[in-house]
């Protein structure tokens, strides 16, 4: 009983006294599991680092990364310019730091668009079943079978190059796996007793879907989202590299590689450093996603 006084005791109590305590407990136990996986913790540290760097950008950079300084162009890495300077004399370190905001902006925007679409379609299809399910899943399958980058390129061709359009194009080609996952989860809970109870109590279908079914799908969707983040970052960087994403002088990492390409042989740091940044961040999301999957679904570890 004395254990109850400590936070740890409260979090591990055998019988939770409130909804809030039960939720915190589930979270804490998941965290204990997660913590045992060193690889996943490294992933989490990388992503937290990314968020931290993006938030603190004004304080850790000396410039805004946009202003040309032609006297100092193409300088090698030094104490003053850690990663050297680019073709316009801008500090590459500063541009990488500011670019982290763009990366975060891209992934959050894609997530904000894709998760609700996937959830709505998947939950409706799984819960209602029948013809609605068939039609919705056909459409999902069609999108699932499409080549992602090519289709994104075709969309950008219509919408015009630019960061927001690239995000939209990526979102259009990314939502389908989420619908599939949400549907699978909805199917498993559809016939459970608490849903029946809600139905008997006269809760509307929309109410059941939003209050009871959708929340249960969320954890699988979030795991998949984390695993997909790396793909989203790589696609966005690829579009940027092709000149279809963020436009100069925006310090988007893919576009930075593209612009630095011609200096590859003599000033190697100009195109290589942004690539390392992309690699680290996408690696971070992959590690984190792997770890989360192990926590939520230990069977499919691989």
């Amino acid at each position, binding site marked *: 009983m004395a254990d109850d006084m400590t936070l740890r005791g409260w979090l591990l109590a055998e019988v939770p006294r409130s909804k809030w305590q039960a939720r915190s407990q589930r979270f804490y136990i998941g965290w204990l599991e997660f913590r045992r996986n060193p690889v996943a913790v490294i992933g989490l540290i990388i992503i937290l680092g990314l968020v931290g760097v993006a938030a603190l950008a004004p304080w850790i950079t000396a410039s805004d990364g946009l202003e040309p300084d032609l006297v100092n162009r193409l300088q090698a890495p030094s104490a003053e310019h850690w990663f050297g300077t680019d073709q316009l004399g801008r500090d590459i370190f500063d541009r990488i730091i500011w670019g982290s905001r763009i990366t975060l902006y891209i992934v959050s925007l894609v997530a904000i668009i894709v998760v609700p679409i996937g959830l709505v379609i998947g939950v409706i299809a799984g819960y209602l079943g029948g013809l609605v399910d068939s039609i919705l899943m056909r459409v999902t399958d069609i999108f699932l079978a499409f080549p992602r*980058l*090519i*289709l994104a390129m075709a969309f950008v061709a219509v919408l015009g190059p630019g960061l927001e359009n690239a995000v939209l194009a990526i979102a259009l080609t990314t939502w389908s796996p989420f619908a599939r996952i949400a549907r699978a989860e909805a199917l498993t809970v559809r016939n459970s007793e608490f849903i029946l109870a809600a139905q008997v109590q006269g809760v509307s279908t929309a109410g059941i879907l939003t209050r009871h079914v959708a929340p249960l799908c969320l954890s699988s969707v979030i795991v998949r989202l984390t695993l997909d983040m790396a793909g989203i970052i790589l696609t966005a960087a690829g579009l940027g*590299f092709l000149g279809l994403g963020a436009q100069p002088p925006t310090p988007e990492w*893919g576009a930075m590689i593209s612009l630095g390409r011609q200096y590859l042989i003599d000033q190697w740091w100009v195109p290589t450093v942004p690539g390392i940044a*992309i*690699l680290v961040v996408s690696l971070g999301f992959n590690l984190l996603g792997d770890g989360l999957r192990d926590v939520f679904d230990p069977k499919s570890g691989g």
Partner: protein
Amino acid sequence: MDQASSSKAAGPGPALPSKLVKISGVLVSLTLTFLGLTAITFVISRVMPVDPVLAIVGDRASNEVYQQVYLQLGLDKPIYIQYLRYLGQLAEGDLGTSIMTAQPVIEDIKRFFPATLELATIATLLGIFIGVPMGVFAAVHQGRWPDHIVRVVALLGYSAPIFWLGLVALLVFYAKLGWVAGPGRLDVFYDGIIEPVSGILMLDAALARDWDIFYNALSHLILPASILGTFALAYIARMTRSFMLDQLSQEYILTARVKGIPESQVIWRHAFRNVLVQLITIIGLTYASLLEGSVLTETVFSWPGIGQYITNSLFNNDMNAVLGGTIVVGACFVGINMLSDLLYRLVDPRIR
């Protein structure tokens, strides 16, 4: 396998129809997916802020000419008729004319596609021949350092931006070390010597017994193919590992070991055979995604394939070429995916 065939001989009745049902199921979804793909490209071509009539007749055409072409293109018809017409044109292989090359898009694609095919095929082969043994090796040594190394390599291959990897490889192996030839498919002075038969340079050179060109083509190909293959390798190794782990934990493996069968036989003859079936799908998926993924690699290595064709057309507002390329790559992607799905259904005895 023996059991399956004998049971079929005993009762040929139900086996065949269910197989037919499965095949027709795949065909239906193939058709629907393809219709979806064309619907999207159709919508894109209609939404484009380019007047298709003006693109043909030019600014200075008279109103009558404009009207005539307008009717000719069927733009007065309802949208679904226009879509059906579009499908009809596609069925005839008519993808329109490219503004950039002033040739039918389908002819352009025939010229550019073999280069992509060559690149993606070699990359996939590299992925298979390195990735599969890596995956098996990791699974056998689960939890020990070979396993960790394979996992890290696979994750890195997964996470690296392919265009950046290509640039770094060019810097190291071409510019600094000089081990391989640079961008492009051939050195300039070899260009146009051999008659294109298949369009696949190494094959054509071998057919013509011109080994200088063969080696030059190989030297150009090896770097982009390895870079593109990195992704294939990562994916295949990872999946092989997890499939193998699945099999190795089964009871029949324990039985085999207890019987005193040598470990190498347990791994390759017993466990790996069952993995093989699952790998078909994975390899199909990889191949399809490489056909698509070569866009970025081609850009980095100035590889004159379909990806570069689409990208260049995009920058010249050559929509017929962009959409034609999208349809062809999309169709290959969808087709290969479905084919591997079908193969899997036909080969796996449990599904049969």
